[in-house]
C-alpha cells in the first residue's frame, strides 16, 4: 500500500507524520528540536516542490510512505489520484491519502511561511520547530489512527477488494 501524507507545504506536519509512521521519530515521547531538524525533509522543501509526491521510506509492513504539499487544495490531490487510478487501472485500495493539515497550529503556519516563503530561515525554522513540538502528541495520535486502520484493513480482508477510490483518511476532517 502507498500511504501519502499531505499538508499545505509538504515539509512540516506531513514530514513529521511520515517520520512518526516510519519510526524515525518516537511515538511515545516528544522529540527534541535536534531530532526533528535531523529529518532530511523537515523544513527543507522549496515552493517548487509543491505537488511532488516524495518517497520517505518503507514501513515494517512493507507500505511505502510518501509526503506531498498541495497548498490549500486537498481536493486537487484527491481528484488527480482518483482520476489517474481509474485511467491506469491502479487498485484503489492500494492508496491511502492522509490529510494532516488540521494539525498545523498558527505558530507552525507563521514559521513555515517565514522559513519557506520569505526565506527567513533563522526566524522561521525555530518557530515552526517549536510549533511542531507543541503539536507533536496530536500528530502522533493521528498516525496511530492511520496505523491501526491499516492493520485493521489487512486483518479484515487479506486479498479481498475493499476500500474507496483513493481511500482518504483524515483522522479529524475528511479529505
Amino acid at each position: 500500500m502507498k500511504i501519502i501524507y499531505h499538508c499545505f507545504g509538504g515539509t512540516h506536519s506531513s514530514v513529521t507524520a511520515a517520520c512518526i509512521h516510519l519510526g524515525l521519530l518516537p511515538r511515545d515521547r516528544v522529540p527534541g528540536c535536534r531530532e526533528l531538524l535531523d529529518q532530511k525533509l523537515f523544513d527543507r522543501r522549496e515552493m517548487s516542490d509543491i505537488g511532488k509526491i516524495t518517497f520517505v521510506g518503507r514501513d515494517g509492513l512493507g507500505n511505502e510512505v510518501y509526503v506531498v504539499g498541495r497548498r490549500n487544495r486537498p481536493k486537487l490531490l484527491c481528484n488527480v489520484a482518483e482520476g489517474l487510478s481509474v485511467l491506469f487501472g491502479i487498485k484503489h485500495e492500494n492508496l491511502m491519502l492522509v490529510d494532516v493539515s488540521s494539525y498545523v497550529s498558527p505558530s507552525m503556519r507563521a514559521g513555515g511561511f517565514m522559513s519557506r516563503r520569505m526565506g527567513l530561515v533563522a526566524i522561521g525554522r525555530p518557530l515552526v520547530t517549536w510549533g511542531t513540538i507543541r503539536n507533536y502528541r496530536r500528530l502522533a495520535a493521528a498516525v496511530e489512527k492511520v496505523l491501526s486502520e491499516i492493520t485493521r484493513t489487512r486483518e479484515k480482508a487479506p486479498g479481498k477488494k475493499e476500500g474507496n477510490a483513493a481511500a482518504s483518511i483524515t483522522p479529524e476532517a475528511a479529505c
Partner: protein
Amino acid sequence: MNTLILISSCSFPLSAVAGSILTGELPDRHCPGKIREIIFACEKNRYSEGRMCWIGTAPDGTRVAAFTARSGRGILVNLVNSFLEINNIDKNCCRIVEINPPAGLRLFLWRLALEIPLAGRTGKIMMEKYIEKIYPYLAASVKLDWDWQISHN
C-alpha cells in the same frame, strides 16, 4: 496502449478542447459553433479542480484524458508526473502535454469578468472569442506534441 494526458490551468477546460481536436470530435481547422455546448457539458460534469475528464480514443488508438485546475499549473503538473512515477507507469507509453495558450487582453478580461458578479455572461462571450482566437494554437500544439512522441518511439 499509448495514453495522452492534457493539462490546462484556467477556469475553462482548454485541455478538453485540445483533446477533442485530437480525437476528431472537433475539427482541427476552425472553431466550430458547438464548442459552447461542449464547454457547458464539461462544466455540468464538474470538470475542474483536478478531476479527470475522459475525452476518448484518438484514431491511432491513443487514449486521451484531460485535467484542469484553475491557477494550479505547477502543482497539477507535479502531481500528475510524480503520481505516474510512484506507480511505475511507463513514460514511453504516456505523454503529458501542458496547454499553455498565449495570454492576451481577452483572456485577462474574461478572467476578470468571471470574477465579478453579474458579469458572468460577458465573461462567457469573452471566453468564446478568446477560444476562437487561440483555436489554431490548440490544434497545432496537441498534434505536434503527440507526433513528436511517436517519432521518438
